[in-house]
């Protein structure tokens, strides 16, 4: 009887340690990626931002060339002004409209026309992109990435359509020489 009791103690300790080691902490849901492969290489993926609902935060800068109305919930903190660049944070959706991450867009750090986006997809990684903006049409290159997007480059285009949706098309490619 005593040995059964001690066996129970040992089993209790071992079971708890096994639970601590093997049990998953949380199940982070990953939404299925919607990508196409280009004929000449590269993976195409489109993201969307639906304005004004997806605008989470905004630093208006000196002007608002895109004419977006900032909702009251996203009002900037006046004590932090003035700030010379135009910076927004958005919900980021995939092509089917499912929220898959957060996007940070900054315009005017160096010149009036420069723009950069950082797309953060928690289940996958981050894409950092820069380029040129002509208000509702933007184009540029993918300059850096993390996790799934590490060591990838490519290009991107974004446009703000008449239905007030930013559509961001990315083409990611393995950087030349990475396979060597």
């Amino acid at each position, binding site marked *: *009887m005593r040995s*059964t*009791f*001690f*066996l*129970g*103690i*040992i*089993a*209790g*300790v071992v*079971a*708890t*340690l096994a639970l*601590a*080691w093997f049990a*998953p*902490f*949380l*199940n*982070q*849901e*990953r*939404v299925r990626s919607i990508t196409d492969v280009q004929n000449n290489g590269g993976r195409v993926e489109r993201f969307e931002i639906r304005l004004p609902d997806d605008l*989470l*935060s905004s*630093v208006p*800068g000196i002007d608002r060339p895109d004419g977006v109305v900032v909702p009251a919930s996203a009002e900037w*903190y006046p004590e*932090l002004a003035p*700030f*010379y*660049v135009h*910076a927004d*944070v958005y*919900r980021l959706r995939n092509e089917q409209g499912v*929220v898959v*991450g*957060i996007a*940070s867009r*900054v315009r*005017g*750090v*160096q*010149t*009036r*026309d*420069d723009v*950069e986006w*950082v797309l*953060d997809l*928690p*289940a996958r990684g*981050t894409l*950092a992109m*820069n380029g040129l903006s002509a208000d509702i049409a933007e184009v540029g290159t993918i*300059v*850096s990435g*993390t*996790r799934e997007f590490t060591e990838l480059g490519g290009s991107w285009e974004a446009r703000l359509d008449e239905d007030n949706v930013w559509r961001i098309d990315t083409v990611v490619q393995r950087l030349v020489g990475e396979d060597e």
Partner: protein
Amino acid sequence: MKFILTFFLGFIPAALLTLFALLANPIFDSSNELTLKSPGLSIPVAGTAVEPVVLGESGYHWMAPSPADTAPPDVHGMRSAFSVSLASIDGNTSVAYVVRMHAVSPEGKPLLGKMIDRSTWHAIIPKRGTFIIDANDNLWGFARRMMFTMLRGEIWRGDIEYVTTDGPVGAYARVRGITGTFAGQTGRAQMRKRVQEASMARGITRRETVIFVDIDETAPVAAEQANP
């Protein structure tokens, strides 16, 4: 039957005691060493806004959003959150715009001292350039000290400070330059976080973070500021 009862008389207390020992043990409480003090760029961030974004319909609920009047989402989903801050740098002569986008990582093992929060920081230093920081922060030290108070529904108050950076490159976060003087450069960073007040209902309500960045810079950008 008697053997089964005897077995569980040993099993259940042993399991509970082991669980308590894992949760309360101070071995996992140690802060990482801060090695990036100077020279370099330090960015104090005093989290000004956090809003949850629901990314899925199953998963895990992290702490309530801050500020408290941010409406919680209706569905139980994994939350990704962000904060936006402006920080004075360079002896209050300049300001940095910093966006932090983060989510709790499934790779954590809280009972073994790992509660990993995975962050991407987007930092804009006007007249100099921009970079991103890819960081894993181990928040278990904070959680271990605060959770028993918070689980009782009370407000935790105190003063805890940790260097939380725990990867992805050893004990450092990875920095990648995007534009300006940081373009093409890589570096490393560490975060020091201080928490003074938190609750389950409102999340962390008094905190500050300082990011210590070690990244080379090229010559100053010649382009004229569009908005001087």
